[in-house]
Structures are given as structure tokens and as C-alpha cells.
């Protein structure tokens, strides 16, 4: 039994210690996550790559030595040199600046696709999980239909249907990506729906919509964020593949997949047009995957011990 300290003298110091004691389980968890984080160097490497990727995207205009679309046919297909570390492409454009500006496009691709697919996924998932019954059955069958297609094939079909531009490619990929989040949100919603406190709130007169928004939604955010980091790698690859097939970003937009596709017939003598953007895709997607892998290991109870 602790000696009760005198009332007057509860100093700030003991209040802080009190605050800490209440937070112990959470702090404990954070310490454990950091410990695991340090133990998996791969996740560290992933984090570093992603930070670099975001920084380059942020300061792209400053970093890019030349304009990504200025053509200079007189110097086309110049090999990499000090002035142009990544060399020039068949239109005489600086490949390095195109790759750097491309970072910004990749970030916008990821952000837009993630937002659209999460919004659709949440709506479909929560509604299906929360109401259950026939609504759940219908919505889930629709999800199954989208999942029946191999991802890229469906994205290609949508991209070809809408005129092949970057925005349409983004829409196409989002139409494919939402299914992942729908399933997650549905699982979360079904778990919460059966909680006793939901009955209590409903008894107090809260409408379904309010429950869904204020209770189900916040709970399903965390698994979705985790899934998001793992999906980003695939999103970039899908966008790049569409670009490669000519169904995605159109020139002169320096989307990485399109740059690789542009340069592929010059691979023999001017390898640099394809090599550097390809490497950029590889490193960035590698970063996201390492990050995602690290997160997955940390959260997977089986591996956590």
C-alpha cells in the first residue's frame, strides 16, 4: 500500500508519473513495435526509400535540372553524360528530369487511387457488413465479380473503354482496387455490429448512419491503413503496366511506365532510356513492399513473439 502523499504537495512530477502509469499498456506496445522495427532492418530500408521517394516528389521542380517535356531533336539519344546523368531520349528530352517529375505523377497516382478505392471500399464494405442479410449478399457478389478478373485484365478493359489517358487509368485501377478494402471494411463492420454497446447506442436512438460513421468507420480505418501501404507497390506496378501497354498515361506525360514503354524499342543501342525509369519503378515499389512486409510482420501475432 503506497503511503498517501500529503494533499497539498502533489507536484507536477507525480501527476506526470500518474499520466505515464495510465498510458503504460500503450507505451509498452509502442516500445515493442520500435524494438521489432529495429529488429527487421528490411523495414528500415523500406522506410528510407519511401521517405526519399516522397521528398523527391515534393521538391521535384527544384531537383529536375531541365524541363521534362522540352524537346531538342538535334541532341536526341545522347548517352548519359555529366550534363545529363540519365542521358537523352529519342525526342532529346532529359531522362533524369522526366524520372524526377515522374515521381510527382506516381505520388498523385497513388494518392488519388487510394482515396477513391478506400472511399468506395468503405461504403460498400461497411454497408454490407453492417446491414448483412440480402444487402450483404448482393454487395459481396458484386465484389466477387470484380475479383473474378485478374487485376490487370480488368484495369485494361476499363482503361481501353475510357479513352487511354492517365486520369482514366487512375479511375480504371481504382475500380479494381476497391474490392480489397471492401472486404476489410465488411469484416470490421460485422465484428462491431455484434458488439453489445452497439445495441445500447441504437436503444438510445442513434440512427444507423450515425452508428456507421462514428463507430464502424473509425474502427475499420486501422486495418485499411495497414493494407494501404502494402497495396501502394502494386498500384504503381499496375499503372506502369498500363503505361507500358499504351493504355495508361499518354506522352509527353513522364509517367514511369510510359517512359519505359517509349524507350523499349531503343533498348539495344540506347539502354538508358528504359533502364533508369525501370530502376526507379523497381526501387520505389521495393520500398513500399519492404515497408508493407515489415508492418505485416510486426502486426502478425504469429511472428510477433
Amino acid at each position, binding site marked *: 500500500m503506497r503511503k498517501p502523499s500529503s494533499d497539498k504537495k502533489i507536484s507536477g512530477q507525480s501527476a506526470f508519473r500518474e499520466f505515464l502509469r495510465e498510458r503504460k499498456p500503450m507505451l509498452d506496445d509502442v*516500445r*515493442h513495435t520500435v524494438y*521489432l522495427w529495429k529488429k527487421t532492418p528490411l523495414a528500415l530500408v523500406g522506410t528510407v526509400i519511401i521517405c526519399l521517394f516522397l521528398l523527391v516528389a515534393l521538391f521535384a521542380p527544384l531537383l529536375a535540372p531541365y524541363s521534362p517535356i522540352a524537346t531538342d531533336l538535334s541532341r536526341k539519344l545522347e548517352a548519359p553524360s555529366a550534363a545529363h546523368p540519365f542521358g537523352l531520349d529519342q525526342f532529346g528530352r532529359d531522362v533524369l528530369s522526366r524520372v524526377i517529375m515522374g515521381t510527382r505523377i506516381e505520388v498523385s497516382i497513388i494518392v488519388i487511387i487510394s482515396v477513391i478505392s478506400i472511399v468506395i471500399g468503405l461504403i460498400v464494405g461497411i454497408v454490407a457488413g453492417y446491414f448483412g442479410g440480402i444487402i450483404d449478399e448482393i454487395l459481396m457478389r458484386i465484389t466477387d465479380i470484380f475479383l473474378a478478373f485478374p487485376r490487370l485484365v480488368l484495369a485494361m478493359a476499363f482503361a481501353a473503354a475510357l479513352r487511354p489517358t492517365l486520369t482514366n487509368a487512375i479511375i480504371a485501377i481504382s475500380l479494381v482496387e476497391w474490392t480489397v478494402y471492401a472486404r476489410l471494411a465488411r469484416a470490421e463492420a460485422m465484428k462491431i455490429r455484434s458488439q453489445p454497446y452497439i445495441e445500447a447506442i441504437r436503444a438510445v436512438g442513434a440512427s444507423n448512419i450515425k452508428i456507421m460513421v462514428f463507430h464502424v468507420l473509425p474502427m475499420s480505418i486501422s486495418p485499411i491503413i495497414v493494407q494501404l501501404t502494402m497495396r501502394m507497390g502494386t498500384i504503381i506496378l499496375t499503372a506502369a503496366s498500363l503505361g507500358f501497354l499504351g493504355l495508361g498515361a499518354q506522352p509527353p506525360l513522364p509517367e514511369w511506365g510510359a517512359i519505359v514503354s517509349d524507350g523499349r524499342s531503343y533498348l539495344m543501342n540506347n539502354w538508358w532510356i528504359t533502364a533508369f525509369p525501370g530502376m526507379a519503378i523497381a526501387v520505389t515499389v521495393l520500398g513500399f513492399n519492404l515497408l508493407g512486409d515489415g508492418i505485416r510482420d510486426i502486426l502478425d501475432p504469429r511472428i510477433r513473439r
Partner: protein
Amino acid sequence: MEQQRGDLLDISGLRVVFNTYAGQVKALNGVELWMNHGERLGVVGETGCGKSVTALSVMRLIEEPGEITSGALWFEGRNLAQLSENDLNSIRGKDIAMIFQEPVAALNPVMKVGAQIVENIECQRRSADAGQIPDKRAFSEIMRDMLGRVGLDWQRTENLYPHELSGGMAQRVMIAMALSSKPKLLIADEPTSALDVTIQAQILNLLNKLVRETQTAVLLITHAMGVAAQFCDFIAVMYAGNVVEYGSVQSIFRNPLHPYTKGLLNAVPKIGRTDELQSIPGIVPDLIDPPSGCRFHPRCPYRKPDCDTLEPTLRAAKTEPAADRHHVACFLYQNDA
């Protein structure tokens, strides 16, 4: 140094630690244990006192993040702690066998039960007469005989999968498997704790019968004093990683010396006694930074000034006849503190 105390097994100064994220758990703090051929030693203590860890350490089955930091594991003149992995493998399953608390979980879910027993027999035979071509049919015969001796109809049980067995049946299979290679020492890590009471008695009686026939020594890990008293010849009481008292069943029960043993015995309800049960005050210590000196001192009513600085060692208590081997690790009985 040589094996002196028990001619079958002699554990001295065994220390085991677990490096977890929260810090280093000092699970065993110099365990002292010994037994002779054919004897039965019961290791009792509250959960978390390190009795299971001791059992696993004997066969060096401690996995990451645990590790044996020091101590000797003498077994018939050989120190298991220094043995190489394949030398140890020639002893595991052959000379020392083990059965566990969760019998169903201890069997491979995707392999038929009969096959798992045959695997054990085959493994022992191969190490024994390496030259000969393993005779599959003979091994099955032995397996069927063992299943019969543990009271199971082998025609039905042989082809079942572990999840198709009840707890009792699974433990019988484990016993059949363990004893199929006629080990010198059987380590039973809380074999009956997960079973309901009626099955517990059956299993213990079965074990008692089989083990007596083959004169196999048994190291029984249990938290039930009653089970230990009924089954074993000697008892070792463990507390927070140390053996605090060791001796024959009679001397321990008749004349418990260590305060913790006394507390344990008072906590056991006895038929006919209606007075209120006493519990031992305080809680089991946190083994990451255990109490200094004797780890029981914070809860010990007879605490003396040195108890929280010096660590008591297991010493023979002079009062009893040598046969009882009564030892205790407490400064109350070491006047040269």
C-alpha cells in the same frame, strides 16, 4: 566435476534466461536436482516457478529466445549440456522420453497416430543397430503391442488423426510413444493437468503400472501436491527459479522445513479440516529484476536480516535420517549465515 549425487540424473547450478523485448527473464537461478535409476521425483511449485523449463532443459529443448547460460546436466556420467546436437539426438527419445501437458497439440495433426509411434521406434532402432535394414513390419508390431498395453484397441486407433482422439486417448498414445523405446528416464510435464479428474486418475494408474514393470525412472512436473505425493518417491519444491526444498515424500509432508513449503501445504485443503485455508501473502516475483538474496524473502514471515542480501544454497537438513535426503535452501537452518 564428476556426477556424484544421483547415478541417473544430476542437475547442478542450472541457469536459464529468456531475452524478451521487456528485458532478460532469469527463469532458472541455479537449480539443483538429482535422482537414481528407477526412482520417481516430483517437481512441484506455483506456475512460473520454472519447473517446466527445468524439464525441457534436461533434453535441451529450450528454444529461442531462451538459452541455458550455465550449469551441468549429468546423465549416467555424461554432461548433456556439453554434448553435440547429434550425440544428444542418440539419447533423446531412446534413454530419455517425454510426455506433455496438451496431448492432442503434441501430436502432428496431419500424420496418423500409428505412424507417429512407429517413427519413434524406427528412430531408436536405427541409432541402435545402424547396419540392419529397418524392418517396418516389426516396428508396427511393437507399436500395436504398446497401444494395447496403454488400453487402446490398435485396430481402431492406429489410423486415426490426433484431432479425432479425446484428451485421455491422446495422452495414452503419447505414453505408448514415449515408452515404446524403453527409456531409462521418462519426463512427464504436467501430463494430467489438462485432463478432467476422472481421466487423471486412470492415466496416473496406467503410468504407475507401466513404469513399475520396466523400472523406468520418472521426473514428474506437477502443481498438484496430491498427485506428487501419491505417485512419487521424492519431491523437489521450486520457487522463482530455485529448488528450495528436496526430500522424500514422507519427510517433506511430515516435516516441511522451508517456509514456502509450509505455506504450500497449508494451502492444500484436507479432508475433515474446516478451518480457513491460509494463502501465502504477496505475489510471485517479477523474474526480470528478481528480489535480491533469497527470492522468497519479501513474502517470508520468518525473514532475517541477511535474507535480502545473500542467496541460500541447498543444504542437507541434519535432523532427518539420510535416506530421506531432506535438503533445504533457507538461512533458518544454516546457522553459519
